[in-house]
C-alpha cells in the first residue's frame, strides 16, 4: 500500500504536442493518500481513463512524475508498480476455471500453493462465487465475470492500489448496488488504496471518501461529497454534481450584491469586483418561493414529482432555473417570485469559484 503522488503530470496522445488543445491531460498535481477510497468523476472524454492508465503504467506520461511512497515510478513497467486494475468490461480467462482465474496473479508471482488455496477461497467467499469455483469462466453471466475480475483485483494483499475503470458499466442495476456495497466493505476490511473511475455521480458519491472531479483534462476539484455539493470550486462541478445541477446566472458582482439586469440579489459575503465572466451559482435545494416582491420574478413552466421532493422549473428572462420543493409545500403556479439563500450563493469568475473578501459562509 502506498501514497501516490502525481507531479506536474501531462499527457498527449500526439507524438509532438503543440498547444494546450493537443493534451488529453493538462497539468495535474494530485496526492492520493494511502488507504483512501477515491472516485475519479467526469464526463466521457475528460481524461480520467488516461490518468488511470498512467497510474497503472499502461501509458507513459508526456511530462511529469508519478511517485509511489516517494519513489519515482514514472517509467517503471506495470509489473513493477504492483497495482491491480479492474476494467470496464469483464476480463476473464475464458478457458480457466473460476479458481484458476482468481489464483492466476498469485501463481504468476510464485506464491505458495497452500497460501493461494486459502486466499482464493477467502476472496471467492467475499465475491459470492465460492460455490462455482470449479466452473469454467466461459458461460458465466456478465455480472459473474465482472465479479471474478473484481476478485482478481483484490486477491493480492500487498498491492499499492486497486484501480477500477468504470467497473459496473455492464452490470444490472440491482447488482450494481450490491457490488458497490461489497467493494466498500472490502475497502474497510483491507484498507487498500482504491481509485474508482466513473461518470456516474451516484456511484462516485456513494463509494468514495474523496471525489476527484475532472473536466477537459484537468482536475477541477478534490473533495468530500459534501464539499463538492456545498462549495463547488468550478461551475462544472456545480453543474455535474447534484440532480438537478446548480443554477448558474450571469451577474455583475459588486461588494455583497449581485446585479442581474435590473434585479439585485444579496450575497452572503463581500467580494472585490472579480474580473472576467462573472456568474452566481445556487443549488436548487436553496431556492425558495417567496411572496416578497423583491425576489426574482419568474414563470413556472414545469413541475416534476420525483417522489421525495418535487423539482420546479421556472423561466427567468430567458434562463431556466430549478428549485427543489420538499413534499407537502403548496405548488406554485403562474407568475411567482423566488429568493436565494444568500449564504449558499457561490460566485464564479471565468468558471472558477471566487473567495469572498469579507465574512460570510461562502
Amino acid at each position, binding site marked *: 500500500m502506498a501514497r501516490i503522488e502525481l507531479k506536474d503530470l501531462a499527457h498527449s496522445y500526439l507524438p509532438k504536442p503543440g498547444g494546450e488543445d493537443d493534451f488529453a491531460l493538462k497539468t495535474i498535481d494530485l496526492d492520493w493518500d494511502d488507504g483512501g477510497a477515491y472516485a475519479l468523476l467526469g464526463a466521457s472524454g475528460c481524461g480520467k481513463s488516461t490518468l488511470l*492508465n498512467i497510474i*497503472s503504467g*499502461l501509458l507513459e506520461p508526456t511530462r511529469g512524475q508519478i511517485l509511489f511512497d516517494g519513489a519515482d515510478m514514472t517509467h517503471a*513497467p*506495470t*509489473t513493477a508498480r504492483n*497495482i*491491480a*486494475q479492474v*476494467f*470496464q*468490461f469483464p*476480463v476473464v*480467462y*475464458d*478457458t*480457466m476455471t473460476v479458481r484458476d482465474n482468481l489464483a*492466476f*496473479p498469485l501463481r*504468476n*508471482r510464485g506464491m505458495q500453493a497452500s497460501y493461494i488455496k486459502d486466499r482464493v477461497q477467502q476472496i471467492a467467499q467475499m465475491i459470492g462465487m465460492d460455490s462455482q469455483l470449479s466452473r469454467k469462466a*466461459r*458461460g458465466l453471466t456478465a455480472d459473474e465475470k465482472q465479479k471474478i*475480475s473484481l476478485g*482478481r483485483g483484490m486477491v493480492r494483499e500487498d498491492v499499492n492500489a486497486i484501480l477500477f475503470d468504470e467497473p459496473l458499466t455492464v452490470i444490472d442495476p440491482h447488482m450494481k448496488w450490491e457490488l458497490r456495497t461489497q467493494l466498500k466493505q472490502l475497502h474497510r476490511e483491507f484498507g487498500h488504496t482504491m481509485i474508482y473511475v466513473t461518470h456516474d455521480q451516484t456511484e462516485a458519491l456513494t463509494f468514495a471518501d474523496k471525489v476527484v472531479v475532472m473536466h477537459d483534462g484537468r482536475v477541477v476539484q478534490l473533495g468530500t461529497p459534501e464539499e463538492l455539493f456545498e462549495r463547488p470550486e468550478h461551475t462544472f462541478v456545480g453543474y455535474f454534481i447534484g440532480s438537478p445541477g446548480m443554477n448558474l446566472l450571469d451577474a455583475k458582482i459588486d461588494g455583497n450584491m449581485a446585479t442581474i439586469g435590473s434585479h439585485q440579489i444579496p450575497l452572503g459575503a463581500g467580494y472585490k469586483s472579480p474580473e472576467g465572466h462573472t456568474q452566481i451559482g445556487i443549488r436548487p435545494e436553496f431556492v425558495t418561493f417567496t411572496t416578497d416582491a423583491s425576489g426574482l420574478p419568474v414563470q413556472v413552466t414545469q413541475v416534476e414529482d420525483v417522489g421525495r421532493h418535487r423539482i420546479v422549473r421556472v423561466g427567468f428572462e430567458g434562463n431556466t432555473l430549478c428549485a427543489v420543493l420538499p413534499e407537502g409545500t403548496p405548488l406554485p403556479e403562474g407568475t411567482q417570485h423566488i429568493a436565494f439563500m444568500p449564504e449558499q450563493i457561490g460566485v464564479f469568475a471565468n468558471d472558477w469559484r471566487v473567495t469572498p473578501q469579507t465574512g460570510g459562509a461562502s
Partner: protein
Amino acid sequence: MDKPQNNRAWFMVLPVLLLVAFSAIIPLMTVVNYAFNDTFGNNAFFWVGVEWFKETLESDRMWGALQRQLIFSFTILAIEVPLGIAVALAMPKKGVWASVCLVLFALPLLIPWNVVGTIWQVFARIDIGLLGYSLGLIGIDFNLGQNASAAWVSVIMMDVWHWTSLVVLLAYAGLQSIPDAYYQAAKIDQASRWAVFRYVELPKLKGVLLIAVLLRFMDSFMIYTEPFVVTGGGPGSATTFLSIDLVKMALGQFDLGPAAAFSIMYFLVILLVSWAFYTIMVNLDREEERNE
C-alpha cells in the same frame, strides 16, 4: 440468433440451388453411372456393380496416392499452422506497416496456381534461378525433379510459400479482435509471454484456426496444379497425389470406370472430413453465442 420460420425463403435460394445442381449434381450422376457400368463406347453401358470399386480398392495405385496425400496434407499443416501463428504474432498490430505486411502476405494467394508452379520452377533452377544457383554455390546440387526427396521438398516448400499467408491473415484477424484490456490485465497479473499466448490469444484464435485448418486440409487434399506444373507427379509417382492420379486416369488413360469409382471414394472422404469440421464449427459458434 432467432430467425423467423419462413418457407418462402426457399424461393430466394432457388437460383443458387438450380445453378449448383446443374454444375454439381448432374456431373455427379454421370460419375455414379460410370462407376457401376462398363462401356465399349457408343454409349452402350452394362452393369458391373461394384467391380470398379473392388478393382480400385485392391490396386496399390490408389492406396499409394492416398498415403502420399495424407503425408503431404499433414506435413504442410504441421508447418503452416505454427508458422502462420508465429508470423501473425510478430506482425505490427496497426499502422502503415501492418497494411504493407497484409498486402505482401496476400500476394502469393492471388497468383494463379500454375504461375506459382512456374515461379518456383524458375526460381529453383540451378542455371538460371536465384535459389538453385545460391544452393549450388554452397555446394548443394539441387534440382527439383532429380529424385523423390527433392521433389517432395519442392512441393512442400512451394505450398508453404503459397499458403502460409492464409493462416497468417486469419490468425491476424483473430488477434485483432482481442480487446486491449485483455493484454493490460495480463500485464497487471504479471502473466508470462507464454501464459498470454496460452490463456488470452489461443482461446480467441480457436475459431479462425479451425477455419484455417479446414481450408488448408481441404485445399491441400485437392492439390493439383502446382505439382502438375513443377514435377508432373514425378519422378515416378513420388508426388502423384489423389487429384493428379485421378486426372491421369480419367483424361490420360480414359479409364472411365475406375476413375469414377476413385472419384466417388475421394469425394466421400472429403465429405466426411468436411462434415466433421462443420459440426465442430457450428457447435463452437453456438457455444459462443450462448456466452454473449
